[in-house]
């Protein structure tokens, strides 16, 4: 398992890609979920009662940063199918969307633009924010293990 990860990240480009994905997802989700504010001052805080949401953001960002570069590596270096890439992108998008709506500017824009349909979608994403993020983590974890397995087979690595 370790050798498959080492093999995928042997090229520094993929390490940089992983760091970029983690940083942008992590900071983006923290801003959307109001753990970080940029105006009028740059501040971060974790309000009491929101600790679980914060931990789930860390996990989703970390898994996305791990799984996406591994799949890109498979596609570019090994010329393999893009099927598993879909799982990692889906997991990342679901994880991000769960916190994006709510009472913040995105939720407000969605409701203002799409009316009752937007309100229903926003309510769903808000009401089930934690379960949706857990599902996203499940998808990313599943994709991670299947990708590892594929890399071991495709590259004929010994665990």
């Amino acid at each position, binding site marked *: 398992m370790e050798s498959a990860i080492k093999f995928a990240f042997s090229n520094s480009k993929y390490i940089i890609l992983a760091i970029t994905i983690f940083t942008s997802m992590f900071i983006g989700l923290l801003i959307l979920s109001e753990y970080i504010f940029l105006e009028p001052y740059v501040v971060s805080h974790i309000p009491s009662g929101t600790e679980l949401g914060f931990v789930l953001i860390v996990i989703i960002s970390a898994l996305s940063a791990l799984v996406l570069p591994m799949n890109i590596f498979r596609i570019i270096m090994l010329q393999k199918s893009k099927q598993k890439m879909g799982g990692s992108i889906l997991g990342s998008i679901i994880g991000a969307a769960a916190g994006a709506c*709510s009472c913040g*500017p995105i939720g407000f824009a969605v409701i203002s633009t799409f009316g009752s349909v937007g*309100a229903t979608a926003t309510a769903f994403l808000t009401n089930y924010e934690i379960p949706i993020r857990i599902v996203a983590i499940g998808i990313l974890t599943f994709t991670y293990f299947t990708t590892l397995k594929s890399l071991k087979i495709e590259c004929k690595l010994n665990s």
Partner: protein
Amino acid sequence: MNKKVLILGVIVIAIIAGLAASFSVSTSEIVNLDMGRTHGTISTAMGSPILGDPSAPITIVEFGDYQCHQCFNWFHNTKPELTRDYIETGKVNLVFVDLAFLGSDSPKAAQASYCAEDQEMYWDYHDLLYTSQESTIDGGWADSERLKAFAFSLGLDMELFESCLDSGKYSKRVQYNIQQAREHGVRGTPGFFIVGPDGQQQQLGGAQPFSVFKQILDPIV
């Protein structure tokens, strides 16, 4: 002589009682009757009663939704410190204006708060809604029956409250407040305007921590 002392004593007691009564009125909730009330460029005429000293030099106008969980976070994490350090000390007062947009129960909850205001219990009802908020939007925690149950738990006159809520008496008031929010570019809840003594105002978006309010308020208090 004794009669004169007795009369004088009665007058003194009456004056003291009068002063005590007027003091108790000034510290209780004051229903907003000023239809031209503004803070900065915002018309708060249809908003909540003022929380705190009405003559405080700074006003915080909060735009919020009773179903918004970030408003819940702000209410529980930032507002207590703000109340202790600025509102109770007379430096700042606060007005709540509804931006009830999240679900069909949001405008109804806002209307219910004004029905409670009719009985001078606006802030008690407001606080109870944010204390009782559940995580689901339109999940039933703020439907008409629960709103009435909240009123009952506060000991409000239920006949008055129910007729007010069922008739939609404050429907237009809530719509007016939502319009105020839109006109001032509020794009989510909670949203704040801090209006200083000379009318200058600063907009804040989101459930910002107490440290941010402190940094803005301290230089202008």
